[in-house]
Every structure is written in structure tokens, then in C-alpha cells.
């Protein structure tokens, strides 16, 4: 018995991966259906839609950056002390005394910057490919909220090292907020937790950075993924429907049905021309 067989031919492995390696079409469908992460995708995707030069994988890379930020961020939380007296020193100590401390801090910093860039480029890709158009209109709005959250996450993290760079960037930022017409003072006070940058500011931004904003991001990005499926997956070209004579056929199975079904029934898609592909239906079960 080879090593591979030893590892895979046992009860535990089979309980984890019921189907074994996906080497047949049936198994290729089942591996997606049976995996929490892969089930974000439909079992089959448009070849045009997954061309690298169409999406550049920017949405996927954005969430991957977020995952890496969460991992490196939790590591940093073990050592970081959110107090005005200790914050800066805890980072000095992290850099000097902790195995992989400097590395994880670098990783968190560069992943944060690249995530801002990736999210921005993802928005730009979606715009220039016209992928915001109905029925994906609301998901575009969600995307704008996610962009804003990305900026806020990055900016709240910027204060935490409590060095000169952080302190004065936040001074510039909170002064901008303080220029809000009519409620400027209130905005500034809410941002700072007082009249000047200090302990209340640090604890406030720390809490937003490590709990509130990441949770909001997870909630909204999940909705964003779910809507991608509901709105008909990765966008592909559309053509004007031929009028009149085709009308009856279109009514039988409007293109939208496919999108609406995507949540539960996309494993057996209804073809836009109304024929229920037999092969797909078989794969579904």
C-alpha cells in the first residue's frame, strides 16, 4: 500500500472528502457542492468570465489580503498594548524580541496597503467591464461601502503604532473631519473621544480596528459574495433579445430566472433558451 493510499484510504479522510480526488465530471461537481469555501462558486462557470485578463482575480485577491491581514493582525494583538504609554514600546519590543514579530508587522502593513490598491483596482475593473449594470446594481453599491470600510480599516490601523507618523496623520485626518459643515466640532470630538488626540482616541480607534470594522467587513463582504451568485455570477456579454417571435420562448425561461435560481439551483442551470440541460440536471443530484 503506497503512502498516498495509506493517507487517503481510511475512514477519517473519507469522512472529510467523501468523493476522493475529483477525477470525473461527477466528482468535479461534488467537490464544489461539498466544500464550504468552494461553494461560493457555481459548479460550472463561463469560460469568458474566468479569463485572467477579464477580471485579473482582483476581488479574490482582495479577500485573500483580508484573510492574511486577519491572521497577521491576531498575531500582532498578542503583543500590542493599546495604551498611550505602552503602545509604541510594545511595537519596539515586538520588532526586537518576538520571533517573526517584525516580519508579521511588515506583512500586516504591506498587506493593508496592497488591499487598498486591490479593492480600488477591483472597483475599476468592475466599472470598465460594465459589470455594475442591472441586475448587479445593488452589489456595486455594496462594493462602494466595502471600499469605504477598507479605507476606514486602514486609517484606524494607522494610528495604533503611536509614532509621529501616526499621530500627525490622525491630526490631519481629524482636522478634516472637524471641517464638516455645521457639525464639525461634534465630528471631531467623536473621532478623538475628546478635544485632542490621546488615550480615548487610541482605545476608540483600536476597538474599531480590531472588532467593529472587521466584523462589519465580514458581514458585508459575505453579502457581496452571495449577491454575486444571486445576480448571475461573473458578468458575461449580453445581447438584445430578438423581438416578437422569440418573445414566447423568452417568457418560458427569462434570462433572469437563471440568476434567481443561482442560489439553490445553479448546479442544474436552466439555459437561457429555455432548455433544461440534461447533463446539468444530472450533475445536480
Amino acid at each position: 500500500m503506497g503512502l498516498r493510499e495509506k493517507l487517503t484510504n481510511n475512514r477519517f479522510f473519507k469522512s472529510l472528502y467523501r468523493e476522493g480526488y475529483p477525477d470525473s465530471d461527477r466528482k468535479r461537481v461534488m467537490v464544489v457542492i461539498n466544500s464550504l469555501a468552494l461553494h461560493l462558486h457555481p459548479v460550472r462557470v463561463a469560460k469568458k468570465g474566468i479569463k485572467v485578463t477579464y477580471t485579473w482575480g482582483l476581488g479574490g485577491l482582495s479577500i485573500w489580503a483580508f484573510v492574511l491581514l486577519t491572521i497577521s493582525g491576531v498575531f500582532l494583538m498578542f503583543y500590542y498594548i493599546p495604551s498611550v504609554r505602552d503602545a509604541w514600546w510594545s511595537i519596539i519590543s515586538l520588532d526586537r524580541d518576538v520571533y517573526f514579530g517584525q516580519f508579521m508587522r511588515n506583512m500586516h502593513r504591506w498587506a493593508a496597503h496592497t488591499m487598498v490598491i486591490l479593492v480600488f483596482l477591483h472597483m475599476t475593473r468592475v466599472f470598465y467591464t460594465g459589470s455594475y449594470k442591472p441586475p448587479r446594481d445593488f452589489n456595486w453599491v455594496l462594493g462602494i461601502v466595502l471600499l469605504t470600510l477598507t479605507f476606514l480599516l486602514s486609517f484606524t490601523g494607522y494610528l495604533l503604532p503611536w509614532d509621529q507618523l501616526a499621530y500627525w496623520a490622525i491630526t490631519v485626518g481629524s482636522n478634516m473631519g472637524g471641517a464638516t459643515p455645521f457639525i464639525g466640532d461634534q465630528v471631531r470630538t467623536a473621532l478623538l473621544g475628546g478635544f485632542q488626540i490621546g488615550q480615548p482616541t487610541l482605545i476608540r480607534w483600536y476597538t474599531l480596528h480590531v472588532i467593529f470594522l472587521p466584523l462589519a467587513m465580514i458581514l458585508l463582504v459575505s453579502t457581496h459574495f452571495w449577491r454575486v451568485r444571486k445576480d448571475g455570477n461573473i458578468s458575461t456579454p449580453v445581447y438584445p433579445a430578438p423581438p416578437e417571435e422569440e418573445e414566447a420562448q423568452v417568457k418560458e425561461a427569462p434570462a433572469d430566472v437563471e440568476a434567481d435560481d443561482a442560489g439553490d439551483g445553479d448546479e442544474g442551470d436552466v439555459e437561457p433558451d429555455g432548455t433544461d440541460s440534461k447533463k446539468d440536471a444530472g450533475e445536480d443530484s
Partner: protein
Amino acid sequence: MARSLQAEEEERVIEDPGERVHTWPNLVSIELVGALIYLIALTAMSILVKAPLVDLANGEVTPNPAKAPWYFLGLQELLLHMHPALAGVIVPSAVLILLGAIPYIDRSRAGTGIWFSGPKGIPIFKFSFIYTSVWNIALVLIDEYLPAGETHGIGPLLEMFGFPAPVGSVFVPLVFMTFIPWSLAIIVKRRWNANTREVMIALYTFFLASFVVLTIIGTAFRGHSMHLMWPWEIGHPEGLLGGH
């Protein structure tokens, strides 16, 4: 309203995804390779480049220049040219709201799924990018070098002529921020006979080019006292390292 919504629903299109392939392995393998490339690049960068950590925060020592993180430097650049309420709050809020409104203005599904939605999109994109960049750079240069008594800029010059301060800090910037995208829309409509989607491409490109150009100027061309200078003249900001 109800009637127009109904009319809209009548836009019938055929979505033709074309050939479809199994997610495993066709898409999953692409995602894996992309994730690995990003992870390797990030790891390499994290080994080679240290995240900055300068002196302990000190409210008594103001760095010169004091800059926000790079993605806000476009806004900080605007701050040099207009009223802070406009640059710091109203413009960014308006940008986010207008971005969100795009799919509710451009409702037609034609052009979905094609980069730049067809052959006209690319020249419109190129023209809009250059048009916006030229305007941005020209206005930044004018505001920096236009002499106005002991200082410089459009606002101070108008004040010298007796206009109240808000004319230079609010009215003139609003005029430019409206005129540039408006004129751009008119040009692409006339030159390319642009439809709603193509005008939208021009306007998004106006946003994109402004963001890129102003961020680059704010990051690489603003040095001591936020004066305009070449990147190699900027040096290290004062008050970040070594106390004092």
C-alpha cells in the same frame, strides 16, 4: 415612476455566457496560482522592507510636512487649494455617493461583460484620462506659482482684488470641479456621439485620473511646508526621526 420602472423591466436581453467549464479545476487552479503569487510577493516584501516606525508620538513637535496616509494625499492636495469643508468632507462624500449612483443612472444592460463596452470605450478612456490629468496638473501649477502679493494662488489673488474669501476657497473650486467633468461629457458626446455608458466611462475616468494624479502629486511632489518640488528634492520630513 411606476410606469418608467415597468418600461425598464421590459429591456429584454439574452445573457450568453458561452462555453461553460467546471469550476474545479479550471477556476480553482487560477485562484490558487493568484493567491500563491500574492503570498510570495507579500512575503518577499515583508522580508526585504521594514514597516516604518518613527519617533514616539509627540504633540509638541510638528513634522514638516505632516502627511496623511498615501490614499488620502489626493484629498490633502485638494486641501491646499480650497476650503477644508469642501476638500475634506464634501468632495469625498459626493464622490462616494456619485460612485454609488452610477448603476442607477446607467441602466441599460448593453455593454456588460466587455472591457470598455466596445471599440469607442478605449479612445474615450484615453482622451478622458489625458484631458483630466492636464486640467489637474495645470490647476495645481497655477495655484502654486500664480503670484498674489506676498503669497501665491488663485484664491489670494481674488482676495487682493477685493473679493470675499469664499469666492476663492469655495466658489472657484466648485466651478472647476463642475466645469471639467461637464465639459468632458460634452466633448465625448460631440466627438464620439457617446451614449450614457460611454459618458459614464468618461466621468469615471475623470474620477480615476484625478485620484491618481492628485495622489501622485501629494505623495511625490510635496515637500517642506507642502511646497511643490521634485521627488528627489523632498528628502526626509522633519520631526519624524531623532527627536527635536
